[in-house]
């Protein structure tokens, strides 16, 4: 048999086996689908957090407050320093008068400023940062602070670190819980497929006694596992599509779900691909583990 005939043999026999043990196949598909549905929550949550993080990064700005004694040459030096840094998208000078004008829009602050009788603010630079620049700004901040005409540098370090830490925790917890769910499902899938092998042990013995090579005895079972995992993935994708388009508006009012439902189509496509791939991995590994059982190996 050439490669194509072998592939055709494996695909055909695996598909026929899938149909012959419909009950067990359906059970595996349901288990895979249930597992993927749980994993989809973690994957979805992780994507939502990723987006929140990216969005937060984009909004982060650095504020560089200058000393009251800073002169025009100091302003130019500091602006040049900022513009030469690859992480800086733009550096806009905000004079102390412009800053005061902005502050005075708040009537309470306006009253306080009037009571002071003078402008307590200093000139500053509002620095827009390039994507992925936030969180890696310690050295730039140090360089700026070492300038005698710079009083303070504020780049939201604490806020940024809080969001990043939260994201990291959710990711690790998700990975641990998701991994546990995946391994549990793998165990159940593998044992269900072992039942299917037990039901067909006579055929396995027959094939071994006829001298059938390993690919011929194992191939159809592995393909069957792939098929079951794939179908489990497709079921979950269909379910999520129904929820997204059918029940979406009704669920919008619940906190968090609106962010999930608001993910752009390419994020959903990526999530679906991941789920189907995980289903296939679950199916093929489940089948492989079933074939590794001692009594199955002894059939050959």
């Amino acid at each position: 048999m050439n490669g194509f005939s072998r592939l055709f043999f494996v695909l055909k026999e695996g598909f026929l086996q899938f149909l012959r043990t419909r009950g067990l196949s359906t059970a595996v598909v349901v288990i895979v689908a249930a597992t993927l549905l749980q994993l989809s929550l973690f994957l979805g949550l992780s994507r939502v957090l990723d987006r929140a993080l990216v969005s937060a990064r984009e909004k982060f700005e650095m504020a560089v407050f200058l000393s009251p004694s800073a002169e025009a040459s100091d302003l130019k030096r500091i602006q040049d320093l900022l513009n030469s840094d690859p992480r800086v998208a733009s550096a806009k000078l905000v004079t102390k008068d412009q800053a005061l004008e902005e502050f005075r829009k708040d009537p309470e602050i306006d009253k306080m400023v009037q009571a002071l009788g003078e402008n307590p603010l200093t000139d500053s630079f509002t620095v827009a940062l390039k994507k992925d620049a936030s969180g890696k700004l310690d050295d730039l901040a140090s360089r700026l602070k070492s300038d005698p005409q710079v009083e303070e540098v504020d780049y939201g370090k604490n806020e940024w670190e809080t969001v990043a830490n939260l994201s990291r925790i959710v990711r690790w917890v998700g990975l641990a819980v998701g991994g546990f769910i995946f391994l549990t499902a793998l165990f159940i899938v593998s044992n269900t497929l072992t039942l299917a092998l037990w039901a067909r042990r006579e055929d396995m013995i027959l094939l071994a006694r006829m001298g059938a090579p390993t690919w011929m005895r194992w191939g159809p079972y592995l393909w069957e596992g792939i098929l079951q995992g794939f179908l489990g993935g497709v079921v979950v994708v269909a379910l999520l599509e129904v929820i997204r388009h059918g029940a979406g508006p009704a669920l919008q009012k619940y906190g968090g779900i609106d962010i999930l439902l608001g993910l752009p189509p390419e994020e959903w496509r990526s999530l679906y691909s991941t789920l189907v791939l995980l289903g296939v991995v679950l199916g093929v590994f489940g089948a492989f583990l079933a074939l590794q059982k001692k009594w199955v190996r002894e059939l050959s």
Partner: protein
Amino acid sequence: MMIQAFHLTKIHPSGVKVLDDAYFSAPEGSFVVVVGESRTGKSTFLKMLGGEEKPTSGVLKIDHKDIYHLPEPERRRWLSDVGMVFPDLKLFPDKTVEENIHFILQVKGASGDGEKEAIVQLLSRAGLAAKVQSRPADLSSGEQRMLLALRAMIFRPRLLLADEPFQGLDGKAFSTLFHFFAELNKSGSTVVVSTQQASLMEEAGKNGMGASIQWVKLENGKFLPLEAVA
């Protein structure tokens, strides 16, 4: 395939000795019929030849190779040239008659162009033309036995081992199957058949079915050459 056995002994786990320092030899292309009472070890001997029952002691060589000491890939290659008709080697219940035959061609790596016509022709000669799409459960026991034998021969094995293949067959089916065995043997394959129906086989041989049969009787754990069977 040439078969040589020296000092062959087989003791079952129950302690029964079915072969006792036995000698056996069959040249390539021979047609051997092993006769003997029931439970004398005929089936065990055929399974030994098929690589399924390791001798307790002694040497069993096929084509000068000890089949129980072959590396696994070589053992599988060797097995792909052996056809077996054993009572416990069942048909695939979920496959049709035609699929059962086609499947073995795939397993043995012998499928190719024109195989469908060849299968239909063979089934037609065996009287199973009308049952091509039937499942084994829909066949009579005689038809099932015939199909088991066809399955073992379709890929033209170099060694055919048939344990009581004629049991339950009527006269016509018997002679058809004997013809198939004789044809396979004429094409150069070694055929080893065990049977209790020795007189029927001898009759078939006398009726010019073309096979030159080497008769052996298995008795008290040893092979005894026979000129003819009464």
